[in-house]
Structure formats: structure tokens, C-alpha cells
């Protein structure tokens, strides 16, 4: 964080000098805090290899994201006032120039921003950037006008068998609105494709069929479980072991997206 300020000052951008001077003490405090938190981040990351919203929250705090974007993600952090290009408000999806999905945000975090104070977070690993992106997306959903309409929970995925890089995932979709909604797509930043499939018994045979949408009844739930509907994850880019987390992005028929982290379980599990 401190680095951006210094770099900016060197480039002689006058508009920066004022907040820079005023916030010198705060800055020093910040640097101390971030370095401690950063150390903790490194230690924690070394122990975990997966992405999650919780991990994203920790990284969001540890990397000082809130100083510009605010604790709630409204772009109103303590230093935002001094910036010419205002920090992004995570509610405003249209303002995400490089896309607002988890994978797009994760990719954005690795890039640089010539006309803004946003640094490139190359200090984070790919998994960590995904975690931060998941947290950013969750902030957006948590605020969406009152209560979020559709939520996803209890997500889990079978660890792929040794000779495979595909797996089935399950979750519960809850629709708290008075209108029926539908899941129309899904993706994961660590998989080539995520499809919706239905398992059914026909003429005594168990069969699989791809489906294009999964209805979530008004004030009701749609369960994706081993007895029927499920998500098929194809082309996983890395091995998943029980206990890991698989980031998933769900697309609804009204254009909304939901981020959910699926817990990896034993492949032989039934629920």
C-alpha cells in the first residue's frame, strides 16, 4: 500500500501530495499493520492451498484494500477522498471495466492500472486472487437492495478419482423472492467448464443428461444432490483433495451471479 503512495509522489502528481502529507502518521501505522498482517498471510497461505470467501476477507483486510474501497466495498475508504480516480464501488457492476465475475476480478487483480491508484497484486498467488475476488463478489451480493433474492449454500464437490480431472458438485439454491428463478449457467476459475446435468432412472438404467436451466421455485429451494441434478465440473486445472474448496460462480436467469465455495469431500460420499 505504502508503495503506491510513494510512486505516485515521485511521478509528481500534485493532487496526491496533500493527502500524502496529512496522512503521514496514519500511513506509518498502516505500513506496520500491513507488514504484520502480510507475514500472517504468508504463513496462513503456506498452510492452505484453496480459495474461499473467508480467506478473501482476510486478504482484503491484510492487503489494505479497505483503505480505498472501504470495509463494505462502497469505494469510500479513508483515503478514497484524495484520489482522482475514485475507487470502485463493488455494487456498481457496470463500472467493472474488465468484467465482474470472480475469474475476471481475479485476473484484474494481477494487472496494472495506469490511470489509477490501484496496484497490481502480484504478491498474491492465483488462489489468493480468486479468494479476494470471491470476497469482493460476496460484498456485492450481501448489499443488493435488502436481502439477496437467491442464495446458494451447502455446496460440496466429490474429489475427482485419480485418473480423472472432472467431478460432480452439489448445492442448495434458495429463492426468497415471490417469483420463480432459474440457474442458467455456472463456471469456475479453476475448471475448463461447468455444466448442469440430471441423473435419472429410465427403463431400469441410470442415465445422465445435460440440462440448460434449473428452476428455483418462488419462496422455495432447488436441491442439487446425488439423487438427481448436479453440476459437472470438467477440466479441473489442479488436483482437489478432501478439505479443499472449489470456487464456483452461478449465473441466474435475471443476470445475477452468485459466488459459492464448494467443500471438497471424499469421492465415495453419498451426501
Amino acid at each position, binding site marked *: 500500500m505504502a508503495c503506491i503512495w510513494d510512486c505516485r509522489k515521485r511521478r509528481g502528481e500534485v493532487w496526491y501530495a496533500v493527502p500524502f502529507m496529512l496522512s503521514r502518521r496514519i500511513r506509518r501505522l498502516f505500513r506496520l499493520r500491513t507488514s504484520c498482517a502480510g507475514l500472517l498471510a504468508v504463513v496462513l497461505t503456506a498452510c492452505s492451498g484453496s480459495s474461499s470467501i473467508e480467506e478473501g476477507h482476510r486478504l482484503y483486510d491484510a492487503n489494505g484494500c479497505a483503505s480505498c474501497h472501504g470495509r463494505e466495498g462502497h469505494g469510500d475508504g479513508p483515503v478514497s477522498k484524495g484520489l482522482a480516480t475514485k475507487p470502485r464501488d463493488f455494487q456498481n457492476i457496470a463500472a467493472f471495466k474488465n468484467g465482474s465475475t470472480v475469474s475476471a476480478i481475479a485476473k484484474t487483480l494481477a494487472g496494472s492500472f495506469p490511470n489509477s491508484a490501484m496496484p497490481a497484486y502480484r504478491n498474491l498467488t492465483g488462489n489468493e486472487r480468486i479468494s479476494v475476488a470471491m470476497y469482493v463478489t460476496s460484498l456485492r451480493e450481501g448489499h443488493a437492495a435488502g436481502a439477496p433474492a437467491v442464495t446458494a449454500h451447502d455446496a460440496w464437490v466429490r474429489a475427482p*478419482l485419480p485418473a*480423472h480431472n472432472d467431478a460432480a458438485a452439489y448445492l442448495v439454491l434458495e429463492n426468497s423472492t415471490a417469483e420463480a428463478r432459474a440457474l442458467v449457467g455456472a463456471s469456475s476459475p479453476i475448471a475448463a467448464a461447468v455444466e448442469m446435468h440430471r441423473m435419472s432412472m429410465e427403463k431400469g438404467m441410470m442415465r*445422465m443428461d445435460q440440462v440448460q436451466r434449473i428452476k428455483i421455485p418462488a419462496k422455495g429451494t432447488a436441491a442439487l444432490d*446425488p439423487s438427481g441434478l*448436479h453440476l459437472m465440473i470438467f477440466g479441473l486445472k489442479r488436483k482437489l483433495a478432501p478439505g479443499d474448496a472449489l470456487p464456483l460462480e452461478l449465473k441466474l436467469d435475471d443476470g445475477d451471479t452468485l459466488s459459492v465455495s464448494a467443500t471438497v469431500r*471424499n469421492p465415495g460420499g453419498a451426501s
Partner: protein
Amino acid sequence: MNFKSTLRIGTLVGLLLAIIAAGCRREGPAPVLPIGGDFTLTDHNGQPFELSSLRGKVVLLFFGYTYCPNECPTTLGKLSSVYSRLGQSASSLKTLYVTVDPDRDTPEVLKADLSYFAIDALGLTGTREQIDKVVRQYAAAYQIVPAPESKGRYTVAHTTTLYALDKAGQTRLTFPYQATVDQIVKGLEGLLDEPASGQNG
């Protein structure tokens, strides 16, 4: 009360008694089912496999394919529990996993996937003709379902029955996909208790 109605009541009482008697009778050994029989396939080590080589062992057999995301791992997970429940006697139990997708399920793939489960299992593959013959023998069925828009390209619909063969290689029990670990363990205990010479009837 005339003769006709006495007869009717008598028949009813008789029937009822017969039903009760049938219910109280001690459960006998499971009969030999008219399906199954010996076959030749290739095991997951690439070696020729004869079912007759497993005489003296109780065999669990089912059809599946490793790209099956759901029921095959569920069945294998369930069988892991069956093996651990049986404890010592599981040493006389062999599981055979016959693939109905020999194009993708090579011996190497079968071996790698089965290694994940703590069960004494052998993956079996073969030519399409060999597999189809075994499928017919066991009155099973499968069907390749093209999935042009899916990354998986196709899926294989298949029956999910689990067959239990006695120590003489005769099919004695079948379990549906929904069978619980308890039901499978109970059925197998009966077969494992039988002498190795087999039961004829």
C-alpha cells in the same frame, strides 16, 4: 350358518394360518438365480481374467464406467463400508467392476481409480463383444447417450444392480442401487458362511 359360509371362513382361516407359518419359517439360503455364469475379460493389470479363477470366494459384481460422476463412486464408497463392516471375513470377498465404456476405461484408468478405495476390487474391461456378452449373461443393460454440447461428449446409461455370487460362482443375490450397507452386509454374511464347495439350491 350354512355349509357354504363355513367353508368360506374355513378357507380364510387356513390361508391366514399358511401366511403366518410362511412368515415364521426360518429364512433359508438364497436360491440360485438363473442369470450369470463364467466369462473371460481383461483385468486392470492387463492380464486375462476368468471368473472361474475366483472359486471359493464370494464375488460382488457390477457394471459401470469411471466417467460416471455420481453412482459409481457412491457404490464404491458404499462397498468400502461393507468391507470394513465385514472385517476379517472380507478376505474371502472379491469385487469386480466391469466397465461398459471400454473406449475410455483402459486398464490403467480402472486401476488408478479403484486404488482410491479400500476394497479388494478388480476392474475388468475387454472388447465390446466380450463386454456385451457378460452384460447379456447378467441380464444387465447399457446404452451410450451422445452429449454433443457437453465436454463429456457422451454418457453411458447403465443398470446399477449389484450381483452377489457364491463361492461356486453362482448368482445368488442382487441388490438395487438404493440398497444400504446393512442389507448388503447381511446378504453377504450368509454367502460367506457357506462351505467353499458351494450351495446347490
